[in-house]
């Protein structure tokens, strides 16, 4: 996928709930929110564990960064596409080995080669001085 020069990419709004996640991404690490009491991952992150209702047992743990494509959409025309990205581009929904799903983009692959079940691993894309994004690439099964 390619970006259109001159059009800024929407950045996440950083707040106290998601800052650890994006700080880790900036350091080329993928972390996930997990309740250490329940041993359950949560995405999107939340202020309370919905299992045990604790606000003190949530922590950020390193992800394996490995998973597979669970679903995807392919923006084939400009009509509904995001102006900062050249069409065609795909947005994928990755199911990580931890069971958590993340929206992302693939690198080094054409949109029409993407399929459900494809094994992937995380990579990091330093878009600009103040924005790094996690993306995925195909890996051997």
């Amino acid at each position, binding site marked *: 996928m390619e970006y259109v020069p001159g059009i800024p*990419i*929407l*950045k*996440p*709004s950083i707040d106290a709930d*998601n800052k650890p996640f994006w700080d880790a991404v900036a350091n080329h690490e993928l972390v996930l929110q997990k309740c250490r009491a329940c041993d359950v991952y949560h*995405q*999107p992150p939340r202020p309370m564990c919905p299992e045990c209702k604790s606000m003190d047992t949530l922590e950020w743990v390193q992800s394996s960064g490995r998973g597979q494509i*669970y*679903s*995807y*959409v*392919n*923006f*084939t*025309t400009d*009509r*509904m*596409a*995001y102006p*900062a*990205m050249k069409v065609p*581009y795909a*947005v994928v*929904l990755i199911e990580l080995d931890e069971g*958590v*799903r*993340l*929206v*992302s*983009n693939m690198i080094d692959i054409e949109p029409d080669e993407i399929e*459900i079940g494809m094994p992937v691993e995380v990579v990091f894309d330093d878009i600009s001085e103040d*924005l790094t*994004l996690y993306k995925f690439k195909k890996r051997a099964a």
Partner: protein
Amino acid sequence: MPSIKDAAAVVGVATTGFSTDSGRTEYSLAAECIKAALDDAGLRPEDVDGIVKDVVDGIDAMYIQKAVGIDNLTYASDSRYGTLPLLNAVTAVAAGIANTVVYYRSANNASGKRAGSDFRAAKETKDESLDMIRYDFHAPFGLLTPDGAIGMAVRRYLHEFEVSAEQVGWVPVVCSEHAAKNPQAIFHDAPITLADYIDSDVVVDPLRVLDCAPDVDGAIAIVVTRAERAVDLSQPPAFVMANAQGTSTEGEQLSSYSRPQMSGLPEMGLLGDELYRVAGIGPNDISVAQLDDRFAPLVPMQLEALGFCERGEGAAFCEGGDALRVGGRLALNTNGGFLGEGFSYGTNIIEAVRQIRGTSSNQVSDAEVVLVASGAGGPADGCILRR
């Protein structure tokens, strides 16, 4: 247990008709439409003591009061999606908070700013609404629009049940046939074939342009009053047998990506169970429904969730179109739906009222009860109306 069953009725309805460029303000459309709905009911503006405004609407209810001449309200609220605003009106009436409530939705969604789509502006103004939680994880990757968001779940549905475009395509085909007979429909006189559907542009794979309901300009208004008062007015009342909302595990607005299975609509199933419980009837008693066809593949998913067929059989139900036509098992979206009449919540309720009154352009004979469901892919809401 207290119940809203048959406590209220829809007694007046109106639309301005729909277009791609109204050339008018939303304020003007709303005022005209509310007055028309009151005229339809045989009520005067001074009879109104409650207003429910759709959140897409930029015109605050107090300005409606100024224009239409409604002095005093005991109930005013904001809501969205059509049958949820109806629920606000019905509960206000059933609880005795108001006697007569008008719900309106007025939007220049085609010629003006598309409601809810200006994500960049929302982010730049640091909108702290809950929806932004997911956009932080979606927007940087180019996933911003409703069709993109719901496309992920549609893909899972098509994949898990091996559903083909040739099956889903019958939804827009039948809706276009119904729209062709509805003079108010934006696609009036323009029925499409399955081949037209298959050949239409893929906008956001897996969605074609003809899967997606067109944005339109226009307004709707719906007048609700107490059941005992309804029988003395100008039109046959459409009594509200049941009206409810449903949300479910790990739900989000079109992007419920964290739930174990994305190929179903659990909130719609919950909604159906509640509607049938309150109404005391089931899917076998219903032969006409206005379902949410904002995105065509959500129709077979709704048919499953609402109990009209088994899970995974929604696409087969739609195939060939006969089950969805007037006289079929379940006449679908007899105004043409959002796909054919244009995407404006509330038109689904208005068409259900036409069926109850016997004035639909695609009238189902002996339509005694009509089911309406909307909010497919997000918080679901619906109602069952009866004669």
